[in-house]
C-alpha cells in the first residue's frame, strides 16, 4: 500500500509539468496587458511603458516560462506583478481562511447531505422525500451570492447577531460556510439518495432483512456503507472545488482567501499569482484524489492496492 502511495505521488510530477505548460499558455493567451492595467485607464502610454520596463514584461515569453518553471522547482513562486510581494507569502496568507471555510462548509454539508439523502431514499415518494429533494434542487439552483446577501441582510443587518463579512473571529465562518455549503449539501443529498436506492435493490440487503436485522441496521450499516464509495468520491471532488476558493462567496463576504486573491490577480493579469494559484489548485486536486482512493480501502476492505 505504501508502494502504491509513493508511485501515485511520483506520477503527479509529469501531470503537474503538463499543467504548468497549459496554465502558462492559457494566461498569456488571454487578452489584457498587466502594465496597462497597473497603470490605470487614465495613464499615458509613457507611464505604461515605464511600468512595463520596471516589471521586465518586455522579455520573450519562452524566458518568462523558463523563469516560472525554475521558480516552481525551487518552490520560490516569484513576486506579484501588482504588489511586488512574494507570491508564496500571499498564498500562505490566503490559504488558511479558504481552508477553514472549506472544512466548515464540507463538514456540515456532507453530514446534512448524508442524513437527508438516506431519509429521502428510505421514504422514497413520501412528502418528506419530496420536500427534501425540493430543498436540494433549490440549494443547487440558488445563486450563491444571492443566498449570501440574504443571510447577511437577515442575520447581520436585521438581527445583528453576526458580523457581515471579513474573517476576524470563528463566528465569522458561519454565514459564508452556510452559503458555500448549500450547493454541496444539495449535491450530496441527491447523490446519497440515489446511491442508497441503488444499493437497497441488491440481494444482500434482502438477505439482511430476511435474517431479521432491524431496519435501522440494514439501512445505516449495510446499505449506507456500500453506497459510500460514490458518495466519498463526490465529497472529495467537492472538497477539491471548495479548496480552490469560491470567488463569488469570498467576494460577497470579503473573505481574505484564495478566491479573492485569484479574482484580483485575474483582473490585473497578475501572471505570477494566477499561475501559482492554479498550480496549487491542481496539486490539491491530485492529493485529494489520492486520499479518496486510499479511503476506498477503509470503506471496503475487499479493495486492494497494487
Amino acid at each position, binding site marked *: 500500500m505504501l508502494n502504491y502511495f509513493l508511485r501515485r505521488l511520483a506520477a503527479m510530477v509529469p501531470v503537474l509539468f503538463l499543467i504548468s505548460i497549459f496554465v502558462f499558455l492559457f494566461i498569456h493567451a488571454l487578452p489584457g496587458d498587466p502594465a496597462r492595467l497597473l497603470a490605470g485607464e487614465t495613464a499615458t502610454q509613457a507611464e505604461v511603458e515605464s511600468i512595463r520596463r520596471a516589471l521586465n514584461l518586455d522579455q520573450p515569453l519562452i524566458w518568462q516560462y523558463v523563469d516560472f518553471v525554475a521558480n516552481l522547482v525551487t518552490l520560490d513562486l516569484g513576486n506579484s506583478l501588482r504588489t511586488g510581494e512574494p507570491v508564496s507569502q500571499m498564498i500562505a496568507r490566503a490559504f488558511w481562511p479558504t481552508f477553514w471555510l472549506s472544512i466548515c462548509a464540507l463538514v456540515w454539508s456532507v453530514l446534512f447531505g448524508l442524513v437527508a439523502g438516506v431519509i429521502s431514499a428510505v421514504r422514497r415518494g413520501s412528502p418528506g422525500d419530496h420536500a427534501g429533494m425540493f430543498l436540494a434542487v433549490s440549494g443547487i439552483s440558488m445563486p450563491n451570492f444571492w443566498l449570501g446577501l440574504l443571510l447577511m441582510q437577515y442575520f447581520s*443587518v436585521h438581527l445583528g447577531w453576526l458580523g457581515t463579512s471579513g474573517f476576524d473571529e470563528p463566528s465569522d465562518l458561519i454565514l459564508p460556510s452556510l452559503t458555500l455549503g448549500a450547493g454541496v449539501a444539495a449535491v450530496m443529498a441527491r447523490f446519497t439518495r440515489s446511491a442508497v436506492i441503488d444499493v437497497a435493490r441488491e440481494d444482500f440487503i434482502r438477505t439482511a432483512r430476511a435474517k431479521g436485522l432491524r431496519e435501522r441496521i440494514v439501512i445505516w450499516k449495510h446499505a449506507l456503507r456500500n453506497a459510500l464509495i460514490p458518495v466519498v468520491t463526490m465529497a472529495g471532488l467537492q472538497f477539491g472545488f471548495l479548496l480552490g476558493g469560491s470567488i463569488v462567496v469570498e467576494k460577497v463576504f470579503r473573505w481574505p482567501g484564495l478566491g479573492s486573491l485569484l479574482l484580483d490577480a485575474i483582473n490585473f493579469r497578475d501572471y505570477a499569482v494566477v499561475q501559482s494559484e492554479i498550480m496549487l489548485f491542481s496539486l490539491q486536486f491530485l492529493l485529494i484524489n489520492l486520499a479518496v482512493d486510499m479511503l476506498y480501502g477503509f470503506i471496503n476492505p475487499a479493495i486492494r492496492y497494487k
Partner: protein
Amino acid sequence: MTFLKRAALSAMLMAGTALATPVLAEDLKIAMDQIFQKMDPHNSNYNVDYSVASGVLERLITFDANMKLVPQLATEWEGSDDAKTFTFKLREGVTFHDGTPFDAAAVKANFDRLADQSQNLAKNSLFKVVDTVETPDDYTVVLNLKEPFGAMINTVAHPSVVIHSPKALEELDVQKNPVGTGPFIFKEWIPGERVVLEKNDDYWDSEWPKVDTVTFYPVTESATRVSMLLSDEVQFVHVLPAELSERVENDDSAEVLEVPGITVWTASLNMLKDKFKDQRVRRAFNLAVDQEAFIDVVYSGHGVVPDSPIAPDTRFYESQGAFGTDLEEARALMKEAGHEDGFDVEIWGINNSTGVRMLQFLQQQLSQINVRAKIVPMEGATRSEKLFSSVDPETAEFDMVMGGWSPSTGDADWHLRPVYATEGWVPKIYNMAFYSNETVDQAIADALNTGDADARAEAYATAQKQIWEDAPAVWLAIENKMAGRKKGLSGVFQMPDGTMQYAKAEYQN
C-alpha cells in the same frame, strides 16, 4: 456596617466606576470599493490609493469639497507670467511622523523623485516638464520648468503629488510604509484585508484629528459595503452605487451624500471612419440621444447632462449649452448627410452591469435614426488591451467607444489635452475619436504657455466652443459621486474627482 467598612466600600465602588468608564476610543471605519494597490501615491494611478494615503501624506496644495485650490503644506504660491517658474512658500513648524522636520529640502527630495523619469514611477509623467528644483531658503521651493506649463499649480495639487518624509524615502519601502505629515500615522496594511491608521497627536493643526483610529477595508461587492454600513460595522461607504442608494436612504441611521462629479461619460465617434467625417452626422447622434433618460437608466437619475466637453467643477469650464434631444432635427441632419436609412456601427464598452446598460440604451436610442448598432461589451482588461495597447488609429475596428474621463488635476488642461488634442490619440492617452483640430490644439497649447489665469480661461473657452461645435463624441452624462455615511459623523466626504477625504472626521454626540 461600620463607618470604616462603608468608606472602604464606597472607595471601591468609586474606583470601580472610574475603571468602568474609560475615555471611549473613537474609531472610524470605512469601506472602499476597490483593493488597495500601493501606499505610495507617486507610484499609483488609483483613486482608492490616493484616498487612503490622504490622511497620512499631505500635499503642498489640495482641493476643497468643490475642487477649489486650498493651502495644505504650502501657505502661498505663485507662477511667473511665462509659466516657467513656480514658487511655493512652505508652512513652518511641521514635522514628519518620524521626527524629520518638514522644510524645503524635504519637498525637494520628493519633487526630485517625481521629476526623475528613470524612477519608473506611475506619476513621473506629471513632472516631466520639471527641469530643476531650487530651495532659496528653508521654507521656499522653486520649480523651474523646461517649457511653459500653465497648469503646473493644479499639477502640484494632484492627489499623487504628496510629500513623503525624505528619511523614509531613503530607508523604507514607501509603497508599504508611508511616513508623512498628516493627521494620521500609518500603522499596518494587511493586503486584501485592511489598512489601519492612528491619530497623530503632534499634528501641526492642533485642532485635529478628532478620531483615534481610521481603518479602511477594501470591499469590492457593493451590496456588502451597504450591509456593513447598515449594521454599523463601518461608518462610511465609498463609492455607493446609485442603484443601492435607496437602501441607505431608507435607513434611519444613515444618509446618502451626493456631489456632482467631474467625470464626463462619452461615446467617442471614430472620426477616421467615413461615416463620422461629416459633422452633421455627429451632431445628429448627439441630438438623437436623450441624455436625461440615459441618466435615469444608467445612474437611477443621479447625474447631470453635460453642456461642455468638461464638467462644471473643472477649472476653466464654460457652458456651451446642452444639445437637448430633437429627433426631428437629428433625422433631418442624417437625411441631409445622405444617411436617411442609417448605417451599421460597432460600439465598444465595458461588460459590467452599468457598462452594459449604457450600451443597450445607446443602441435603442440610435435605432430611432435608423442606426443599427452592434454592441460589444468587453471585460476590463481585454478592453484596455484592445484600446490602449495595440490599437492602430488607421485600422481601429470600432466605430464608437464608451469612456469616462476625470481630470484628476481639476484643471481643464488634463481633460481637454488627453481627450481632444491630437497628441492624445489612443493608444497615447485617451482621444478615442481620433479628433484633430488645429484651433483646439493651438488653444490648448496657448493656455499652457501662460501663467495668466484670464488668458488661460480665454484659450480654454475657445477650445471648448470648437470641440462642442465639432461634436467628436456623443456626450452622455456627468455621474454624481455618491457615498453613504452614518448620521452624526462629519468631515468625511467624497470629492468630485472620485477621491474621498477624512482628515477632519468628527462624531457629534
